[in-house]
């Protein structure tokens, strides 16, 4: 694991991708910092950081795109998978290298609140917590990008799908507003989502009896609940899907100075889920 970690990290800084990412992020944050904090005199660095979020969305796919797509294309995955190292360690080694790359600009950001402090009042607690959560959000995006990189051999496709996914998550809150909030609308939406899941189950098991039973059971259950207590469905869709707006936890800190501990747990869970999915995707390819 350590061998892979060291190799990956070195390769990020030899191939310029790492340097470009760090420079890009620090430059843009520096511009925001000059504008908001130094010129306008706003004492919160956390606010500046929320402006850098969009840079993350472009920068993260740049780091994750090559992680597995390149290995597969150059067939170097044969070296890793035939070495006496478990697949989980291979994935973790690569993931930790990417996390380190993202940690570097965040460590540099730690200097910015001190600059504010030198010139007057600073809110160090809020600023440092927001930097930590910003870093954690980066780790969530890395896990998603790494997973998408295992699905393809092409770095370009990995970049575009990751960028698309992160942009979608960024705009998620706005998209949520188009969803129906009435009980009947939510029930239909939920049924549609269940149908998609059942269709996927049918695809992987090719057992249509099982799928039909699942679909019928969920339709009956939903309709029954709707007639007994329709208020359950009100705002259900935006409640369920709204959780996907990961950046909300971060903006909650930068705008309202409220740390949502549930949100932090959500971040850690999403990271775990996507690392697990990455391992499973690679594992599955060996068998098909």
């Amino acid at each position, binding site marked *: 694991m350590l*061998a892979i970690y060291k190799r990956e990290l070195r*390769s990020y800084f030899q*191939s310029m991708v790492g340097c470009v990412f760090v420079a890009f992020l620090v430059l843009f944050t520096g511009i925001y910092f000059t504008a908001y904090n130094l010129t306008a005199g706003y004492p919160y660095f956390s606010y500046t950081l929320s402006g850098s979020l969009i840079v993350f969305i472009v920068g993260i796919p740049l780091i994750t795109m090559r992680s597995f797509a390149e290995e597969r294309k150059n067939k170097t*995955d*044969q*070296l890793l998978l035939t*070495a*006496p190292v*478990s697949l989980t360690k291979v994935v973790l080694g690569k993931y930790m290298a990417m996390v380190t790359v993202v940690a570097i600009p965040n460590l540099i950001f730690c200097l910015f609140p001190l600059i504010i402090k030198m010139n007057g009042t600073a809110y160090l607690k809020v600023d440092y917590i927001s930097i930590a959560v910003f870093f954690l959000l980066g780790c969530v995006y890395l896990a998603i990008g790494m997973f998408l990189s295992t699905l393809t051999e092409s770095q370009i496709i990995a970049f575009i799908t990751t960028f698309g996914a992160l942009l979608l998550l960024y705009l998620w809150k706005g998209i949520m507003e188009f969803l129906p909030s009435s009980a009947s609308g939510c029930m239909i939406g939920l049924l549609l989502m269940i149908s998609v899941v059942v269709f996927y189950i049918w695809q992987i098991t090719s057992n249509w009896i099982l799928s039909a039973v699942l679909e019928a059971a969920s339709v009956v259950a939903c309709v029954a609940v709707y007639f007994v207590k329709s208020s359950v469905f009100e705002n259900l869709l935006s409640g369920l899907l709204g959780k996907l707006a990961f950046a909300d936890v971060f903006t909650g800190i930068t705008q309202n100075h409220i740390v949502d501990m549930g949100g932090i747990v959500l971040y850690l869970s999403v990271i775990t889920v996507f690392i697990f999915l990455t391992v499973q995707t690679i594992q599955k390819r060996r068998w098909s």
Partner: protein
Amino acid sequence: MIEVKNLVKKYGTHLAVDHLDFQLEPGRIYGFLGPNGAGKSTTMNIMTGYLGATEGQVVIDGHDILKEPEEAKKHIGYLPELPPLYMDMTVSEYLEFAAELKELPRKEREDSVQKVMDITRLNDVQFRLIKNLSKGYRQRVGLAQAILGFPDIIILDEPTVGLDPKQIIEIRELIRDMAKEHTVILSSHILAEVREVCDYIMIISKGKLVASDTPENLEHLMAGQNSLEIETKAKPEDVRRILKEVSGIERMEFDRTKDATTYAKIEVKSGSGREQDLREAVFLAFAEAGCPLLMLKASRASLEEVFMELTQAEEVAADAGDL
């Protein structure tokens, strides 16, 4: 020691490896021989744990490759068809990375890397980036990676592809040296190479093991592998009469050419000693009869013929199956 038990690999409906079953003893060089797409690479990929098998088992020194992958993989060095090289590393960086990946003890790493670079003659290029190396050198770096740490079993998938004749000879020598202490398995579709290097040949066709024996035995395996060809001016009846005296002849075939010569193919009885050479007896018989021989030649089934016969017999059988 490697045991492959009832190995099956399916890609969708395509059967790439069809119930392979064999055991490999330590200290020998094994050759996988087969036409393109016969399943050689797939078999090797399964043996090294890169791919999972649909059915069956691979046991390496008592460790199942799927149940105890880390323990089993420690005994294997693998050079895939395309050497798995990181282009942005130098040769020595790459080999150090491979040594660490293979979990060689920290103290031995430097020595091992130096040793394999000496063996594969990479010292001159050790500080160059792999992407700037020629194909032959890249192949050697891949080979160096495979033998790094000197695992018990070294698996090489077409190790001499893309090398010039001098390098091919060097690599063959290297493989022979390695085989003194290690089991070496190599695949190839070049017959001459397999015949020269390997102690034991396994011919694979359409995912099935169609023959496995030493090169010499494979050549003898063919029916009528020992036969003579003669050309003479005598008529077929005369030839038959002259050769009546010679013992050990199984069968004769005649072919009368336009310019009034007889071409005969004489098959030697296979039971009468493998190395029996009837050329002298045939010559003397014709000399006594005062009949000149225009040509006398021992023809023996070559490995090529064995290979063609075995792999094509498969094809004919498969075609018959389709009907």
